[in-house]
């Protein structure tokens, strides 16, 4: 049993930290999205170092992994620093292309991904298909030499700056719902695509933007089918296991808790009121510090599993635990701040300029989005504990 990072791991981590220290300007920091020229440039520099294609074959533009945990170390350090992360493009798209696509598609898209040439939108969700992603309806109709799509997608993050849509569409309306979905690569500038912005709750002006995507007779060439027809649902599920693990680490919560503790340590109000001296607050912070530590441990479990397999159960544990701790942490901070807790960005006396108000408002979203806490727990119940699908037909135990 060895919890220590190897010298090679520490060296790579130092390298990433150095890179971040040198390149993470204020313009680049603050979001995981690669949506401005400054952020694209930041990721370009990572691409130059070969950090986007680690572990992929060199003929597709990949690079050797310096160490087994390189990908994870990179994600955590970026997340801890509040920098743009590359898990979606590399983790979901590149992995699926490598495993499922033709040699031509690999040669076309993998090098671009590893060079950061264009961002990707994951275009799955529909009004009728959220958690129940298999319920999607938007059809891709086989027109002989191409597919044609008319319909709409909802909550498509990144669509307003993406070059490609990694889009799931119904290709067989008569098959059982999970068996009639396919994935395509659709150019974001294809004729017939239009967007309506949707804004998440948060400080006006800096809110996280997502999009409704309207598709009006959009043509997708047949060569842009990912893998096999009607296997899209399975590709999505595989990628989702990976996504829970690779896109968002627990590090963002560690960073947030650090900010909260720093604030509490330094806050002082009239009447010599130093929150840090309040025994009730001290206890509550101690409790939260413990939960944060446990979160980093669950992540560590996940990393170690990831060295051998896709850590589906561990990633679900991380998701469930992380989102819960994240929400409770924002609550705690606002409670400590009292009436200053509800002052928002721009208020002179808003602690941390209202950052925790935004975190609080989106905390519930983190609990329900991208397969929420309850979905994650049902994954744990089914895959780890061997319990039958609660939404399926009754499965009586063998006598």
């Amino acid at each position: 049993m060895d919890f220590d990072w190897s010298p090679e791991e520490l060296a790579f981590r130092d390298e990433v930290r150095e890179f971040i220290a040198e390149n993470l300007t204020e313009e680049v920091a603050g979001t995981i999205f690669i949506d401005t020229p400054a952020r694209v440039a930041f990721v370009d520099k990572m691409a130059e170092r070969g950090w986007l294609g680690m572990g992929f074959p060199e003929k597709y533009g990949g690079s050797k992994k310096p160490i087994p945990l390189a990908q994870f170390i990179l994600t955590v350090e970026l997340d801890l620093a509040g920098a743009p992360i590359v898990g979606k493009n590399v983790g979901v798209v590149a992995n699926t292309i490598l495993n499922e696509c033709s040699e031509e598609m690999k040669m076309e898209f993998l090098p671009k991904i590893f060079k950061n040439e264009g961002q990707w939108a994951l275009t799955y969700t529909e009004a009728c298909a959220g958690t129940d992603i298999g319920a999607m309806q938007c059809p891709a109709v086989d027109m002989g030499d191409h597919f044609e799509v008319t319909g709409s997608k909802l909550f498509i993050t990144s669509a307003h700056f993406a070059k490609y849509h990694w889009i799931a569409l119904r290709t067989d309306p008569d098959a059982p719902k999970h068996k009639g979905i396919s994935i395509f690569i659709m150019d974001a500038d294809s004729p017939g695509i239009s967007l309506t912005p949707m804004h998440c709750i948060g400080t006006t002006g800096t809110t996280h933007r997502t999009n409704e995507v309207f598709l009006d007779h959009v043509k997708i060439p047949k060569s842009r089918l990912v893998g096999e027809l009607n296997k899209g649902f399975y590709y999505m599920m595989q990628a989702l296991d990976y996504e829970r693990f690779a896109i968002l680490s627990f590090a963002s919560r560690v960073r947030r808790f650090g900010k909260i503790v720093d604030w509490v340590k330094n806050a002082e109000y009239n009447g010599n009121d130093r929150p840090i001296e309040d025994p009730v607050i001290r206890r509550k912070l101690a409790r939260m510090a413990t939960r944060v530590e446990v979160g980093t441990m669950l992540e560590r479990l996940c990393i170690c599993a990831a060295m051998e397999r896709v850590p589906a159960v561990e990633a679900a544990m991380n998701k469930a635990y992380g989102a819960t701790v994240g929400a409770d942490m924002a609550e705690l901070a606002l409670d400590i701040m009292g009436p200053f807790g509800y002052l928002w960005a721009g208020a002179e006396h808003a602690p941390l300029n209202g950052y925790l108000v935004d975190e609080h408002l989106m905390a519930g979203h983190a609990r329900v989005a991208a397969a929420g806490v309850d979905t994650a727990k049902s994954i744990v119940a089914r895959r780890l504990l061997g319990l039958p699908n609660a939404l399926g037909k009754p499965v009586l135990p063998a006598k």
Partner: protein
Amino acid sequence: MDIKLSEEQVQLKEGARKFMEDECTGEFVREMEKSELGYTKKMWQQMAEMGWLGMAAPEDCGGLELGTVDLVILAKELGRNICPSPFLSTVVIAGEAIARAGSDAQRQEFLPKIVEGELVLAFAYQEYTRKFEPGVIELQAKEDLVVARTSGEAPASSGLTMFLVDAKSEGIASKRTPTMARDHHYEVGFSGVRVPKDRVLGGVGDAWSSLEGVIEKAAVVFSGYTGGVCEMMHERATEYAQQRVQFDRPIGQMQLIQSYLATLIIDIYGSDTLTFFTAFNMDKGRRVRPYVAKTKAFAADTVNNTTNVGAQIFGGIGYMEEQDTTLYLRRGKQYQLALGGLDYWEDIIAEELIDVENPTLLT
């Protein structure tokens, strides 16, 4: 014992609900958030015409002299549609303070104007402190409704005086300060502001003797308001759960969703009943200090939980600015922390439970 509303109270409630549904839509609330004033003079005038601004005021000042229970009934309806208006500060806090502490001349000067909708007052109490206790007030007064220290030093609840200060007085600097609810909070600086002696409300140094009761009443009415917020959020979440289909069934048919919604509604019913119970006993003139504290503490947690969990029932869509859920979500936590946070009220509960020789017990 019969805790149903009387016929008049049912009329009050139904009238208020209809008015709110017609006039106070989600769209209206959004407009008010962006507006300069934060409410419309038109609606304020309509509220005056319906007698709402004079509900609490004494009859000889043009009011209806109704009780706290009636204020709670109205406040719940305002809360359901998160009505943007200075009702609490003007009618409940300032109006009540003037009625209790004011001289006859002050009552006759100010109260009819409140009743008629001609005078709006803000409550300038909180200073640069996380605490709500009167003892922490340091603002020196040598007068919106301002509470300031005229003698002694913090922490002491004695030595505080209430002033009615004209908001246009020289030396007052007001700055709107953004809040989660995007309601209209201001930071108000006082620098050498001169206040005529006849604008001192109540005895010099003796504010707390009347203000404590005013804050108690305001806390109960506010708990009614937040109860309305909860009621509406819960109704909408339940309706969504009935309609939204995932995995071939309405999500409201899933055990977990049912558990969330049932847990919330139990709290909401409990909080409402406690609010009315406290209001009823307050109207009877009984000592209700621990009950007020429990009412506010529980209503605060309930509005925070209900808006939070309620929004989660909607999934991702619940977090889009365009959705009314976000209007409620942005108010839940703020309302929990406003008008004395949990620590203020819980300290009172503990004190009444533990330190008081013969604890107040209403049955």
